[in-house]
């Protein structure tokens, strides 16, 4: 099994979720994160204090999938999350050795 972790622009969440359900992936976990990269941030001014803010709001999506579906999943996310503008984000994939569904105790493929 693989875990696909994607960092995306927040307003793309619904499209990504729809793309994933479109290919039969019905579970995922989302975390609010801040990203630092090439996309430049903005300046905030509070009276005399000016701050260059370089961390931008992003969402991290984690999807555990069977090894065989990884490419499909990565493509689906990449397509749905793409705007073509800097800061669209990244997708990382790594192996997981074990998966358990807490409710039933099912493991691995059955747990997803």
């Amino acid at each position, binding site marked *: 099994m693989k875990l696909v972790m994607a960092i995306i622009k927040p307003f793309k969440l619904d499209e990504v979720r729809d793309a994933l359900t479109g290919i039969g992936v019905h579970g995922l976990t989302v975390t609010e994160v801040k990203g630092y990269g090439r996309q430049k941030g903005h300046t*905030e*001014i*509070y*009276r*005399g*204090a000016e*701050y260059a*803010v370089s961390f931008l709001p992003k969402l991290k999506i984690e999807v555990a999938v069977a090894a065989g579906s990884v490419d499909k999943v990565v493509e689906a996310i990449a397509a749905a999350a793409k705007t073509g503008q800097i800061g669209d984000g990244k997708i990382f994939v790594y192996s997981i050795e074990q998966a358990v569904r807490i409710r039933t105790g099912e493991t691995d493929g059955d747990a997803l």
Partner: protein
Amino acid sequence: MKLGSVLRWGAPALAAGLMMSAAAFAQDAAAPAAAAPTVDKGDVAWMIVSCVLVLFMTIPGLALFYGGLVRAKNMLSVLMQVSAIACLMMVVWIVYGYSLAFSGGNAFIGDFGKIFLSGVTSESLADTFTDGVKIPEYIFIAFQMTFAAITPALIIGAFAERIKFSAVLLFSVLWVTFCYYPIAHMVWASNGMIFNWGALDFAGGTVVHINSGVAALVGALVIGKRVGYGKDIIAPHSLPLTLIGAGMLWVGWFGFNAGSNLESNAGTTLAVLNTFVATAGAGLAWMFVEWAAKGKPSMLGLASGIVAGLVAITPAAGVSGPMGALVLGAVAAVVCFIFCTTVKNALGYDDSLDVFGIHGVGGIVGAIGTGIVVSPALGGVGVDGYAMASQVVTQIKAVAVTIVWTGVGSFILYKIVDVLVGLRVSVEEEREGLDLISHGERAYHS
């Protein structure tokens, strides 16, 4: 009938000017020449409301205005400091403060004749600016109490996010005793030095704003910068709370400014109108200047301008015309903007919430400007024998005395407090945040 002999403010000719309009009031017309003083229920109603409004300025108004500007980890400490100071000052006021500020004494300070409000009853009356018109002394005590309660609370913005709570309480009691009561007495008591110079301070520009602003500046210098100042992002944790606070300050300030007339007459309504237009003009002035200088008009800028305008119109509220008020507010906002965004950074001290930059600087502009906008030629109500130059000089003298008295006094008091209980928390505690360290609570949970 025993009368209180307190007199809040009243260059006689000016009082006469206000009375002219009051001449339209039926009750007055009916009053026999030198008869028993009258108490009008309309005045009483208005003065009660004014007390309530000034409390509202303080809690929750000022508490929120300040609290929104600090980081979440210090939120409760600010709310707590403002609230605890207000409570403490109220108790001190009825114990000896009112007496020291308004009972007898000399040109600098009152005496102990009314400690524990001794001798004050429901029948005691206090003077207004109109001959023969009185208000119950209880309400005069309460009204002045609210001023004494908010003023030391203003100071804490200068050293927010790093001060020890015990130091705040101790300093406040000392400062109100040695700086506030004397200045209040000098400016407002009928035997006060500055009062007798003929300086105008309708609602507390020197007593409240310059006084607290200078104490704040000294505090920021003595206590030093926050950890991470100029390096980390130290952004306001909730500007919406700051705007709620600014709105409440504006709303409550009508008690401050228009309540200072001690009656509910045409002169009071002038103070009301001025408190609208000076503030509106100041808010817009800050906004447009910031827009021009920084590229964007900020909500904090607008809110800051609103407060700067309120500060500036305070000494002039009842004596300026509406157009003079508009200009005074706008000028003060521009000066405060330049100070807070440029001068302060150049000087490099950390007055966390710009208490000096807004209350001190705005107060000075307002106090001096009052000498100008009072001019009948500019639509002001005038004072007897008014000459602009001499009035402005008198205003400057009053400002100077306040700055020196409080500057020196505050410095000494900070040093005393530092020796007695220590002024500042440790670096680790400052990082952790005062809410947990000093109060054992956190502002927000889910």
